[in-house]
């Protein structure tokens, strides 16, 4: 097989894996948009906050240590214990649920019946608030996240492809784990929304708020539920991206990678987030591989948006979005 074809195959596989990582972030946006029509600008920051909380809990870091030390002239930094990864993840998930309750009580409750743009603006404020809160709670230094996920080249895939094609493909073990996690996450979310009482209530609210309210579904409960799930998805995304790059402010910028995925896959479809992620991942990687060297490289960031815009021209609602029908 020609060398260039083998390289293209390797790039495609890695593009698929990168796409899964983007999809993990996009899922959180979809969940909230689907249930409430709100584009949650704070989703990237939720991932950062979740990852910071996880590392902090795992390492027994004292939250708000800087503030406590400054006020009381103490020298607190850690509690002196380290939590097992699983327990720390469960506790971090609990914190995200608590955060969802607080967001509902302090922000969303007061904005019922407001225009979507008002809710969107509220999430912008929330993003900046959470960014600052994360800094004050856990510090702005870069933190290593280690929950036992494997990283580095998959020797099995390398040796198998070497045997088949005479060239060993690079696939990162972390990407393989991310793919498995994404499959489980999407399956769980689908099962939850199709077969559980709460899931059906969530879909009812998504279809028609007023009708859902008229049959006794609590909008406030649904909002807490959906923000909790989005918080959990943000935690998963934070774990994957945080393992890859350490936990620090830039983690919140992964949201930028999710936007073209949403534009392409549609804001209301869970499968759309996955398929959109895969198309963006493969598209940007193949473009960088084939055209990048001719135009000086670093094409991925902008090409993802160009690709999404191209799809938008033909399907404004995205590949899997609900068809826009305006009755006059």
């Amino acid at each position: 097989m020609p060398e260039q074809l083998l390289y293209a195959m390797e790039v495609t596989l890695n593009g698929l894996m990168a796409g899964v990582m983007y999809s993990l972030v996009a899922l959180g946006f979809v969940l909230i948009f689907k249930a409430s029509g709100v584009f949650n600008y704070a989703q990237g920051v939720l991932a950062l906050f979740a990852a910071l909380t996880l590392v902090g809990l795992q390492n027994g870091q004292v939250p708000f240590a800087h503030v406590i030390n400054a006020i009381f002239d103490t020298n607190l930094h850690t509690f002196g214990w380290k939590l097992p990864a699983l327990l720390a993840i469960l506790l971090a998930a609990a914190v995200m649920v608590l955060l969802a309750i607080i967001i509902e009580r302090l922000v969303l409750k007061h904005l019922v019946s407001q225009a979507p743009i008002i809710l969107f603006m509220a999430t912008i404020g929330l993003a900046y608030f959470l960014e600052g809160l994360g800094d004050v709670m856990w510090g702005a230094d870069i933190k290593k996240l280690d929950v036992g996920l494997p990283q580095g080249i998959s020797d099995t895939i390398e040796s198998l492809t070497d045997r088949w094609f005479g060239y060993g493909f690079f696939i990162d073990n972390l990407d393989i784990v991310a793919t498995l996690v994404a499959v489980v996450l999407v399956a769980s979310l689908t099962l939850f929304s199709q077969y559980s009482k709460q899931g059906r209530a969530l879909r009812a609210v998504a279809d028609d708020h007023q009708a859902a309210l008229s049959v006794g579904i609590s909008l406030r409960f649904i909002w807490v539920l959906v923000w909790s799930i989005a918080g959990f998805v943000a935690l998963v995304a934070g774990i994957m991206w945080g393992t890859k790059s350490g936990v620090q402010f830039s983690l919140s910028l992964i949201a930028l990678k999710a936007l073209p995925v949403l534009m392409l896959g549609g804001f209301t479809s869970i499968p759309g987030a996955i398929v959109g992620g895969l198309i963006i991942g493969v598209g940007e990687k193949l473009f960088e591989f084939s055209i990048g060297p001719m135009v000086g490289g670093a094409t991925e960031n902008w090409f993802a948006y160009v690709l999404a815009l191209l799809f938008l021209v033909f399907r404004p609602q995205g590949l899997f979005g609900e068809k826009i029908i305006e009755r006059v």
Partner: protein
Amino acid sequence: MKTKFVSLVVAGICAAAPAMADLVIPNMSYRTGAYAPGGIPYADGFNDYFTLLNARDGGIGGEKVSVPECETAYNTEKGVECYEATKGLGSLVYNPLSTGITYQLIPKALVDHIPIYTPGYGRTSAANGKVFEWVFNYPANYWDGASVAIKYLLDQNGGSLAGKKIALVYHNSAYGKEPIRTLQDLAAKHGFTLTELPVDAPGQEQKSQWLQIRRDKPDYVLMWGWGVMNAVAVQEAANIKFPMENFIGVWWSGSENDVVPAGDGANGYKSLAMHGTGMDYPLYADLKTFVYDAGKASGNGDQIGSVLYSRGVYAAMVIAEAARKAQELAGTSAINAVQMREGFENLEITEARMAELGLPNFGQPFAASCADHGGPGAAMLQQWDATAKKWNLITGFIAPDQEVLDPLIAADSEAFAKEAGITQRCN
């Protein structure tokens, strides 16, 4: 009520502003945003050094030093705002800690007559004092760094890099692009092949670049990165099993932040170093007594001795010495920015002086002049020991290849002089 409010505002302004007699040296820091992990330790080191001078020596030449801090978030617009907001305080010098901000401030410095000091960053050709009267970038600049890295590799390869392949992974910005021209000229001179691989900010996704490195199998990879890009690159290099001892970052890609997230995978990674690091210097005994134990440490106090903290200390030390020189030349302790520039231009830092300051063998000795604002440009190499979680210096100072650099600096600075209508001086 209104009177009380006005009084409070006035009192607040008076408390925040430095006393008129203070030597004002603003700290343009970034403690928030994507680059905060790098900005915080640098700002802490910078502040702590001046706090020490104030607490131990009563300032510089009897004048207290005021260090108003302004948050730039590594954002060029905010950096310019910081400059405009603080220059009226009687600022003696600006150390913007950003190449982007530096480029914006250079024309302003010409007009406002305030020196700009950019150690190890900024506009490289500002080393030419004949053109850049108000800018100083000693002891080393990016082009020096590129040349030192190549000289080190020459040394590792018996003096020849002919036929070797070197990849440059760089931050796709003004900063990251700085060494390209130098490396291209060095490639032509030494016969190696240079592959340029840009990474868009912030640099969390670098799979394409590292897949290309895996395919091309370069002998060495150089990196001009900053922020999260560094940590991701080190992790990706470990992922593809690239030999870490053949991976060398510039000094902005050689802090603890860049290697700790990759854990054991970062072991053996190298970077350039333009100064020493760690707390094994006599200065730290004084810092402990007068700053840390006195509860005056900047920030959280948890960055002490790190690479970037050391760099902040180094920048502050050079600025303080320039202020001392300026006082000596002006014959007064209450110097202004114009006199401060004279101090920078006539500054000589010897090994004996550094030892006296409690920093023996910390930086390279240098003597600035009217024409030379760039210093000798030498740098060392350090290597990360993941087990000990420590950087170890593995070479002494290596001098850059001035034969290649001088014409580049002359060409770039002369182009600026032509564009800005500057008549060259020092004739």
